[in-house]
């Protein structure tokens, strides 16, 4: 069943069951991946997926339903289920099926295509061979994977609004496992676009990263100056990004509630949300409510300029939506990142003097509380001695409060490190120097 057929069946069901205002959101996609173990392609997978999300207004309440079962009876049932679900809702929020924005930006990303299966397998094998060839310490368990996906999104509503978008990319990753003197270590590296220069450099980078971890020592508990690598700072930003949602602020579940216009971070911190970030293969010209997206400055010189709004929270607070509406009444950013600062990584190490360079944080789903901002997380990294990167360290935690950390950022690196695109939101950050953080070690 294609989107036109689905739309026709659902629209007819809406007429039959007296549903006047409704929206159909449909996603359809393909993905393939080739995975190696030892010297062969050990696993290959391909998938086709599609899903329809329906919502409708009944007596001022929004009913929701969704399905991946494409059958005429099921699609009619989808309308009935959403109608019934609307009847259970008690909140008094103003909810709207949106009529449409004046204009929508055009994506600049190239038309996404699924990479040929043979090419993908060859790439994975080539990476795997190169990884083994990098160093004699590389052992079995090492994996190289190449993947590609493509998604199409369609939105249609009873006001006649019709929107669509296509996103997709290819990428590869290497998990290098090394064993030296009986100590095993692994390291994961990812590169976008399987034919990029970064992809070709993955094996060396992955192996070196794993070797660098060999011989890690434990450090005493205490206060340390810390350089957090951008790849890890973006994970922290991700764990606490729900605090920027106006909905969470209204519910008393964000420490940023009521702080628009106030200083929430150190002077050098700027945070933007860019739905159409140049070079990002996932660009989003409209949000899940059909509103045209735009680039916004969320934090400027440490001042919180705006929270993120959808239509309902905009109406509730007398503001406009910032086009951050997500399905299910949620709010989320797109390319959400801390902007680059002035320092090279070496300059940050020099400023830290003696301290710790954090290259891994783990367990944020358990060790971070998005409501309070408190975190205490397992970390890995290196010592910084006399302003320079020194040996690896292990089995320590870094603890603090994210909102206090934002205020205490001393310096920022000059390169923003973006995460892996795929879903709705991508986070980015440069390296960050923060002084006097609590570390638990031996």
């Amino acid at each position, binding site marked *: 069943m294609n989107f036109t057929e689905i739309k026709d069946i659902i629209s007819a069901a809406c007429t039959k069951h007296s549903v006047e205002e409704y929206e159909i959101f449909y996603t359809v996609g393909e993905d393939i991946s080739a995975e190696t173990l030892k010297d062969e392609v050990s696993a*290959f997978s391909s998938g*086709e997926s599609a899903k329809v999300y329906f919502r409708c207004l009944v007596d001022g309440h929004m009913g929701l339903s969704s399905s991946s079962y494409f059958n005429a009876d099921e699609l009619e049932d989808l309308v009935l289920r959403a109608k019934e679900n609307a009847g259970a*809702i008690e*909140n008094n929020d103003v909810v709207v099926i949106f009529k449409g924005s004046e204009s929508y930006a055009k994506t600049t990303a190239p038309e996404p295509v699924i990479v040929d299966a043979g090419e993908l397998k060859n790439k994975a094998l080539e990476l795997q061979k190169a990884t083994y060839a990098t160093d004699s310490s590389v052992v079995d368990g090492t994996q190289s994977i190449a993947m590609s996906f493509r998604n199409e999104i369609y939105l249609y509503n009873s006001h006649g609004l019709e929107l669509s978008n296509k996103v997709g990319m290819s990428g590869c990753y290497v998990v290098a496992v090394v064993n030296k003197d009986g100590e095993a270590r*692994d390291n994961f590296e990812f590169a976008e676009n399987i034919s990029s220069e970064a992809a070709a450099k993955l094996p060396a980078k992955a192996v070196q990263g794993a070797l660098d971890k060999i011989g890690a020592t434990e450090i005493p508990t205490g206060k340390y100056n810390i350089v957090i690598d951008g790849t890890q700072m973006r994970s922290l930003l991700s764990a606490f990004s729900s605090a920027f949602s106006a909905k969470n602020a209204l519910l*008393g579940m964000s420490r940023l509630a009521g702080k628009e216009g106030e200083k929430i971070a150190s002077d050098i911190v700027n945070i933007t949300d860019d739905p159409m970030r140049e070079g990002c293969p996932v660009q989003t010209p409209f949000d899940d409510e059909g509103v045209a997206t735009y680039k916004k400055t969320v934090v400027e010189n440490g001042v919180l300029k705006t929270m993120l709004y959808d239509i309902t929270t905009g109406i509730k607070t007398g503001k406009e939506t910032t086009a951050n509406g997500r399905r299910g009444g949620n709010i989320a950013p797109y390319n959400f990142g801390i902007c680059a600062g002035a320092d090279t990584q070496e300059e940050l190490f020099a400023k830290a003097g003696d301290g710790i360079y954090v290259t891994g944080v783990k367990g944020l789903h358990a060790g971070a509380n998005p409501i309070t901002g408190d975190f205490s997380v*397992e970390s890995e990294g290196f010592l910084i001695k006399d302003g320079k990167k020194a040996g690896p360290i292990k089995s320590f935690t870094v603890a603090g409060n994210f909102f206090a950390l934002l205020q205490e950022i001393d310096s920022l690196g000059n390169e923003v490190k973006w995460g892996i695109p795929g879903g709705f939101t991508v986070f980015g950050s440069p390296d960050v120097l923060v002084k006097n953080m609590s570390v638990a070690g031996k």
Partner: protein
Amino acid sequence: MISRLLLEDVLAAAMSTGADFAEVYAEKTRNNGIRFLDGKIDTVSDDMVSGVGIRAFIGTRTVYATTTDISRSGLIRCAKAVADALGESKAQVSINLTERIFPNIHPVKILPGSTAMTTRTDILKSACFAAKERDEKVKQVMGNLASVDHTILIANSEGLYTSDRHVRTRIAVSAVAVSPDGSDNQSGSASPGRGMGLEMFDFIDPKSVGIKAADQALINLSAGYCPAGQMTVAIENGFGGVIFHEACGHSLEATSVGTGTSQMCGKLGQQIANTKVTAIDDGTIPGAWGSVNIDDEGTPTQKNVLIENGILKSYMIDRLGSRRMGMAMTGNGRRESFMYEPTSRMTNTFIANGPDKNEDIIKSIEYGLYAKSMGGGSVNPLTGEFNFGVSEGYIVRNGVICEPVRGASLVGTGSQILMDIDMVGQNLDTAQGMCGSSSGSVPTDVGQPLIRVSKITVGGR
């Protein structure tokens, strides 16, 4: 869901280029969720997942393909895609499927989807209002009542044709308490679930769930930050068992053992834990959160003793792991949905009761941490380095539980921590979690009695 005769053709197509095994997994799942927020029912979600995953092997090489098009042509196309990607030879295969019906040891009395909406919203509201009314400092309560009605059909080239229906229900409440001057807020949560319908509320009072969440938020509001450093830690029963799940469980899955990336490779028969530790994975416990009649490869679940008195006895092994390791399957092949290729996963995994009296465990600690309630965690199975969060903790001084502390996490290495579990108490209880791994998010129970770890790094400040 899909006829036996059609599946015979689909399996034959998947094997047409020389596969030595093929399997079809079809599912239809209704996921329902009711969300309570700000004193009211806020959202009702209602999702139907339908689709098929086809897999074939040559030795330990695998190909997996999925589709939501479950027509004959859609399934044959998907099977041919598998065959094309797997092999180059031509093979004429004929498949004869025989239907098998496995015993249902998890009968469901009240199917959530068949009850009136108000029955379900009343349960959720009763839990959430109990949290709200616990104390005036509780300013926000969020609740969710989720039910899953999951029907699967599995057919494979060994002739198996079987289906199963699995229902599970879970209620989750989180409460936010705010200090009287508004300067501090803390949260608490509780989220019991069962492999049952609404009859789970016959023995779990929804109000008690709300009260537990509120009390935890209130205690954290009165707590100072946990100090950092190495100390002796007593970890309470129930979700405390996440320590075994992370520190050891994942490293015993064929997913990592079969590829040589586990700290536990080659250690069968060796002492890997303190002699007081016996650990079990049991997917057959009636109505438990992590139980299923058959795993997602059609193998009946079983009780696997993983560690007995400190000696490693067994791994958890799926079909591919069984080929890689040359060992029998253990009923642990699981996946979130048809979108994922199955792999070895835990079911209900726990440390059994031990020889120590609970009061003796607390009394034995001169200075340390009593972790009453745990959050989730994660592990690197290669190195065994793990972490998990403490959601409710207290300082222990001279054998007495003293003031509450917040924001603690525990980190360590699996092989070390297993040896350092030097006291095991007698109040075994389990708790529910969603475990994430390469085959998606699956329900698992964790559990243990109160245990003592002689020395572990406590992250705090």
